[in-house]
């Protein structure tokens, strides 16, 4: 029987060869909404090195991504907005040249991940044409407008936060906590999910992430 539910974090991250030094990790969430912080906390003790993390922000404080960075696990961040009132850990390392940063326009980042998940190795977008963030990138004209070629992003692991999940791995999300999560779920070799609540079955018209994209998930309860 297909059953992607596991009983705890230990079972979730056990036997996961994609959680390895040098891995590319997709981390969903925007602001504090829909960030799989409990998964990141579970991964910190693995002491991985040279991770590339793709995340809208750089994390806040020393919990979740902030902690992963603080503990020296992350060598590169791919991000649209890597600063906040609370992102001192990342900013200090960045200023010291100890962590690499690739700043990507938010829509380009979303589309690059979507492309990675959908088997598109590259696409063209007008976003960032003529700016610093397109420097060194191929450009090309279509119908009189200039575009930048961007590459799909494929990752080793996606860390997803969802509202509900059923045994087949189907997921729904809560409001704007959906954000990058469904896109990232499609683009990794292994997709690990923290869901607030296991449910018997998500109606087929209401599924946002079909179970095909999900490897394992753990129930974390309602957030407080």
């Amino acid at each position: 029987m297909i059953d992607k539910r596991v009983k705890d974090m230990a079972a979730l991250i056990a036997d996961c060869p994609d959680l390895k030094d040098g891995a590319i990790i997709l981390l969903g969430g925007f602001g504090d909404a829909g960030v799989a912080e409990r998964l990141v906390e579970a991964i910190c003790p693995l002491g991985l090195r040279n991770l590339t993390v793709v995340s809208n922000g750089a994390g806040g404080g020393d919990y979740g991504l902030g902690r992963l960075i603080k503990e020296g696990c992350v060598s590169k961040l791919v991000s649209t907005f890597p600063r906040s009132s609370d992102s001192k850990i990342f900013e200090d390392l960045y200023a010291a040249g100890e962590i690499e940063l690739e700043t990507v326009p938010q829509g380009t980042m979303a589309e690059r991940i979507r492309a990675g998940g959908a088997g598109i190795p590259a696409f063209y977008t007008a976003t960032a044409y003529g700016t610093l963030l397109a420097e060194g990138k191929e450009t090309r004209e279509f119908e009189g407008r200039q575009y930048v070629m961007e590459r799909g992003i494929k990752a080793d692991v996606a860390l997803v936060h969802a509202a509900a999940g059923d045994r087949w791995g189907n997921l729904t999300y809560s409001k704007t906590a959906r954000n990058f999560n469904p896109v990232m779920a499609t683009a990794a070799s292994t997709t690990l999910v923290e869901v607030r609540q296991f449910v018997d079955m998500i109606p087929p018209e209401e599924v946002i992430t079909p179970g095909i994209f999900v490897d394992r998930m753990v129930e974390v309860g309602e957030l407080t």
Partner: protein
Amino acid sequence: MKLSAADIAQRVANDIAGGSYVNLGIGMPMLVGDYIPVDREFTLHTENGMLGMGPAVPEGSEDWDLINAGKQGVSILPGGAFFHHADSFGMIRGGHIDISILGAYEVAANGDIANWHIPGPRPPAVGGAMDLVAGAKQVWVVLSSHVSKNGAPKVVDRCTLPLTGVGCVKRVYSDLAVIDITPEGLVVVAMVEGLGRDELQAQTGAPLTFAADCGNLKAA
């Protein structure tokens, strides 16, 4: 005589046609949402995955699953919808957002805009700005003040800061004027009552022409 931020927001809101889909940037553009005329319905888009964004909710009663691009707790109006980031930016990049309203450090007479980055030690952070200026049908810039704190014009001949996008701004709203950016250059369509044309020109870094029906802006 200058317009307050509220005056500017009200004027901008008045210029948005009913039925439009509008994205409001973080900061002052957000204020526009508070001045939607009662006779009109238009739909606010927030790039983190919602159409039909409603007002911010009072401090303490936020639902932190329901935020805007500025990470404030907001609400959703009837008729709204949630979607993921790739779909949200498909709307932007695909030209489905009628108007993107943003702040800026500089706007140039050729439509270039610089609003994302001042070189320095902090890490560069762009968010959705480059997607919005490249993708929306129209880009409007709101400037809480026509010039910077040290008096330098923000409406310039060519931007000096790193660009957000090239040739994309259609209109600028400041505390002094409403200026269209046209292939023929900057055209003032309205300016604050009592301000001389030469005074406005003196605070602007590129040549201005004035629309035949150039209107008056009154502070509330």
